[in-house]
């Protein structure tokens, strides 16, 4: 049997935990604050979904598992253990399977780290967001810088691999402020950093404030571009070059799970609001699940299927997804694979124009965005997508 396209990216599981202690004002993720959570019911639902999807995919090697949220560090370690046990019973797993859990850097969470490790978690990603208390408060975070540093230390001594997230291009943040803060972050010697420019999402508290003109001091596009460039340079110099638009790692320490997305592999999305891409019977399906935690839970319990109707992705859609994911990576994408997926040629004239502008490189069958190209990637992709 010839290899299927997804195998170029691998196969992973994404498990969504939709609860948080409070809602951050910038966040548009599917996260909810709940008074009580029936852990047993959630466990039943997750296990049942894992088994259902296992039946559909049949045996294939699981490379990665990712617990995302919400705040997965609110999950009981036992629940995480039960899920991972069921995963192992359902699929063959890679020897070096990467199991990441997103954690908020509070002291309570840190207390559970050992339990997560024993359950099989190999990597944590900490939502540090800022290394300055005033900004942490403005971002609506419940932790302090000191707590974040302490949680990071616990994580370092518990897990082999630790990453953390920072949000920059914040209100009133000067280039000098950010460079200093980034320097501190790099000094903490994580092997992976996710550095996101603050995005104002409609429908969030920040979104509303912004629409009413009350969110002052955000950098304009030119200043944001300067911050982005500086970030690339500083991280590269510190040995953590960008490997994706917002992600930096010591070579070899990249998030393997996220690489599956960007290399356009297959992933099962489990839990409320989780999306998946699954190749089944020679077709690539886009799967989605009910957004609301209670509907998802009820639907799984009642019908044994926590999904909304799935759709088949046509060649053009698959190629578009591969392009918009793959160009985020510094390694770029394979033109041959793109053209095989989309069953049409990439426009050589457009590629040449973008190369001319220094935004794209086309070499040995690989198409990659330059650092300048990654800063305007949406425009580059719009240009490349067929009309």
């Amino acid at each position, binding site marked *: 049997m010839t290899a299927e396209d997804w195998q170029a990216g691998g196969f992973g599981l994404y498990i969504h935990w939709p609860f948080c202690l409070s809602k951050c004002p910038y966040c548009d993720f599917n996260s909810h604050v709940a008074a009580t959570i029936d852990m047993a019911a959630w466990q039943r639902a997750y296990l049942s979904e894992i088994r259902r999807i296992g039946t559909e995919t049949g045996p294939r090697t699981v490379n990665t598992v990712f617990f995302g949220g919400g705040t997965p560090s609110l999950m009981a370690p036992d629940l995480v253990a039960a899920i991972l046990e069921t995963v192992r019973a359902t699929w063959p797993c890679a020897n070096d399977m990467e199991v990441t859990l997103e954690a908020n850097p509070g002291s309570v969470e840190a207390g559970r780290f050992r339990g997560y490790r024993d359950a099989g978690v190999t990597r944590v990603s900490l939502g540090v967001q800022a290394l300055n208390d005033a900004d942490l408060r403005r971002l609506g975070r419940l932790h302090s810088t000191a707590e974040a540093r302490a949680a990071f230390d616990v994580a370092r001594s518990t897990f082999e691999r630790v990453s953390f997230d920072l949000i920059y291009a914040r209100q009133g943040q000067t280039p000098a402020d950010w460079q200093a803060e980034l320097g501190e972050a790099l000094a903490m010697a994580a092997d992976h950093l996710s550095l996101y420019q603050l995005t104002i999402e409609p429908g969030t508290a920040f979104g509303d404030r912004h629409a009413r003109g009350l969110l002052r001091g955000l950098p304009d596009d*030119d200043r944001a571009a300067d911050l982005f460039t500086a970030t690339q340079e500083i991280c590269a110099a510190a040995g953590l070059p960008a490997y994706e638009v917002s992600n930096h790692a010591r070579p070899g320490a990249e998030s393997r799970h996220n690489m599956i997305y960007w290399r356009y592999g297959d992933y099962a999305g489990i839990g409320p609001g989780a999306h998946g891409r699954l190749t089944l019977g020679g077709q690539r399906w886009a799967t989605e699940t009910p957004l609301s935690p209670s509907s998802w839970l009820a639907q799984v319990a009642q019908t044994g299927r926590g999904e909304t109707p799935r759709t088949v992705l046509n060649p053009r859609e698959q190629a578009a997804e591969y392009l918009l994911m793959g160009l*985020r990576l510094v390694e770029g994408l394979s033109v041959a694979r793109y053209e095989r997926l989309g069953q049409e040629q990439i426009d050589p004239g457009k590629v040449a124009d973008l190369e001319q502008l220094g935004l794209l490189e086309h070499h040995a069958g690989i198409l990659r965005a330059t650092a300048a190209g990654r800063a305007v990637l949406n425009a580059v992709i719009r240009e490349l997508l067929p*009309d």
Partner: protein
Amino acid sequence: MTELSQIRNFSIVAHIDHGKSTLADRLIQLTGTVAERDMKEQLLDSMDIERERGITIKANTVRIEYPAKDGKTYVLNLIDTPGHVDFAYEVSRSMRAVEGSLLVVDATQGVEAQTLANVYTALDADHEIVPVLNKIDLPAAEPARVAEQIEDVIGIDASNAIQISAKTGLGIPDVLEAIVTRLPPPHEGDATKPLKALLVDSYYDPYLGVVVLVRIIDGVLRKGDRIRMMRTGGTYGVDRIGVFRPAMQDIAELGPGEIGFLTASIKLVRDTRVGDTITTERKGIETPLPGFKPSIPVVFCGLFPVDANEFEDLREAIEKLALNDASFTYEMETSAALGFGFRCGFLGLLHLEVVRDRLEREYGIDLITTAPSVIYHVYMRDGTMMELHNPADMPDLTLVDHIEEPRIRATILVPDDFLGDILKLCQDRRGEQLDLTYAGSRAMVVYDLPLNEVVFDFYDRLKSVTKGYASFDYQMAGYREDYLVKMQILVNDEPVDALSTMVHRDRAEMRGRAMVEKLKELIPRHMFKIPVQAAIGGRVIARETIAALRKDVTAKCYGGDATRKRKLLDKQKAGKKKMRQFGKVEIPQQAFINALKMDG
């Protein structure tokens, strides 16, 4: 059929926003024409654009029935008209179908330029005029002073002007009574004579086809009659007859003096021409009515479909829309950059924008509108003269002897306090003062101005420098030679014909700078930097640079974002299609008109 003596036909006229449509609401409401639950403000402003902009664009006819104090029930046909200068043709045409006018004057504002203009048109149509002072519910209302002003400025008797509030309903019964007692019934009309009817207006209805608004002069129109359009020669069998209340209501027949609609499976939109006379196919009348004075478009621009494949759809849409807008003209045009389209003529910039909007909304066609222009007379060395509607067609300068441009006589009414601003504005626009008189604390200034300095944004500027207190009306006043040149706009070093304009040489630098600055705002940043230049005959007189895009990327994009991101990009891609490509640069549709609107 209604006795002539029990019919009153009238138009409601006023300066913009003085409350015509609101008065129409009250008349409709008080006579119980529309059920209370179906009433809404400015009921007759039914088009989306009318409701959004809060102004009337199309005249609307409604038949109401009023039991008067004399014990008889009268049939009243009211026509609500638009107030903005650009739609003056709707007003003058409507007036030809009726015998009287309610002249509404806002008692807080007083006489404005359109009040004057409307009175002249009404007198021209031999109308009886009943002045109505509106908005007396407002504390700022000064009905006595305004009545005096009406007598001073307009010279009509305002001693028995009716004081009303169209908003609260105060005084409306008096208006109804005055319509019956002070406006005349139709002057003539004989049911036994052959059919003679005036084609007042028409529109295209997707279900009914062409709907024609008629005013019967003589004879009786019945369903099943065979009719003939006297000018176009088309003959039809009448399918349906009725009146607007304001919903369509079928009736058996329309007699002399009555106003109503007919449908007759009219396929050829071209066969219906406003002002035409309708008679019976056989034994009809010989001489048609004089018809309407044609409207003279003063602003021209090219309309091109964004998607070149939609040209035929655009043609059909334009034909249908023209049916409903007699003041709009069109002819086919081709352009190297834009392909097939139409060169269209309008009564002003608002008119242009309204037509473009209606084509886009009602017919779903995305349009590119080229920079508007007036008509220049280009006199050639060989003694011939060419009418230049489109600066892109400007002949080689070595062949040109001289160029003349259209001028207008503008009448502006303005409170004293703002007179200085107005004089400065007119002076800046190359105006020559003809007259300056006072009526109370208001000045009436008359200026001779070049039309091309007025047409694009003068009205907006006038309103902004006077905080809305000045009003303006104009008539064409012939052509005059001046030092005019063609100014080209180069985007990314390529000339964009659709942005070429004619300008006065002395104003060229200023206009050039304003245009490139505007374009810098209007053209989105691209992945490369774009020089935007204004040039005269190859010499650059102004330039700006649109910096290259530096940041446009989604910070976070994981598995769950793939679908959303793909759909977003698809949408943006579709949005790009709404821009036309000039060289490598995409210029948004709106840029072509907006580039000409000056801020100063």
